[in-house]
């Protein structure tokens, strides 16, 4: 019974193309997954309605948003690594005392003003390990 096809047993120059293709694919995945997906996104809600989503990784300089709702005014500072409420006119100042948040899943809530800032995305995706 003859072999269907005899393979070349020694490496050929074109093999480098396969290696290159695999490396390029790996680099493309790194760029797509780690580069694009790593950035945190801040979602600002007022009265339960999302008013703004900001891709924090694209912020080179911090920005301050003035948010007014239900008779109170907050100054929210958004920077590349997270967010914080700088000051608020609300009575209990819980939002200010929360300090700055930097991890996906964290949030700052000001109940009297019904304003919240939530971080999402980034490397945090709720999976600790993948076992094959």
């Amino acid at each position, binding site marked *: 019974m*003859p072999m269907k096809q005899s393979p070349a047993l*020694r490496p050929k120059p074109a093999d480098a193309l396969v290696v290159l293709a*695999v490396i390029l694919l790996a680099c493309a995945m790194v760029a797509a997954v780690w580069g694009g997906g790593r950035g945190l996104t801040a979602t600002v809600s007022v009265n339960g309605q999302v008013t703004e989503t900001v891709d924090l990784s694209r912020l080179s300089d911090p920005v301050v948003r003035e948010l007014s709702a239900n008779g109170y005014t907050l100054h929210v500072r958004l920077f590349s690594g997270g967010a914080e409420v700088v000051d608020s006119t609300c009575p209990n100042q819980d939002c200010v005392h929360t300090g700055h948040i930097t991890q996906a899943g964290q949030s700052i809530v000001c109940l009297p003003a019904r304003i919240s800032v939530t971080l999402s995305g980034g490397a945090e995706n709720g999976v600790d390990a*993948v076992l094959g």
Partner: protein
Amino acid sequence: MKLTTKQLTLCAVLTALALALSYVENFLPLSLAVPLPGVKLGLANIVTVFALYALGAGQAFLILIARCTLGALFAGNLNALLFSLFGGLSAMAVMALLSRSKHLSLYGVSIGGAAAHNCGQIAAAMLTLGNTAPLYYLPLLLGVSLFTGALTGFAAGLLFRALEHTSLRKA
């Protein structure tokens, strides 16, 4: 597909060999050198490469299906079937394509197969988990596949050299 007795026997032997290789592979302390889950040498791929060249894509496909099904049954883990089928079929498809090229050696074909195997397994993981988190792991696995693919290509080469003067090689 019509198989002669000789072909059927060879397919059965190769299936058994692939199963034995993936079992033996578990004992190699590769995880000491590369402490990452899912990183395997993929020794069973030697059989796929060999079958692809010696018997053609049809019989290589039969061997692969039998190997994946029996392997999952032996392991008592039918979840693993999805992973090995996705990985095995992707590798098989890519290698069947690459082996048509006269410009590629066993090394190129086998590295392409190893990389495709990892892509298939990541796809299976994404399907199982229902999110794209496993994608984070793919670049790493692709890097490792360059080495494991070259190694299985080398091993398959040894096999072809050893069979040089047998009836399999004689046209």
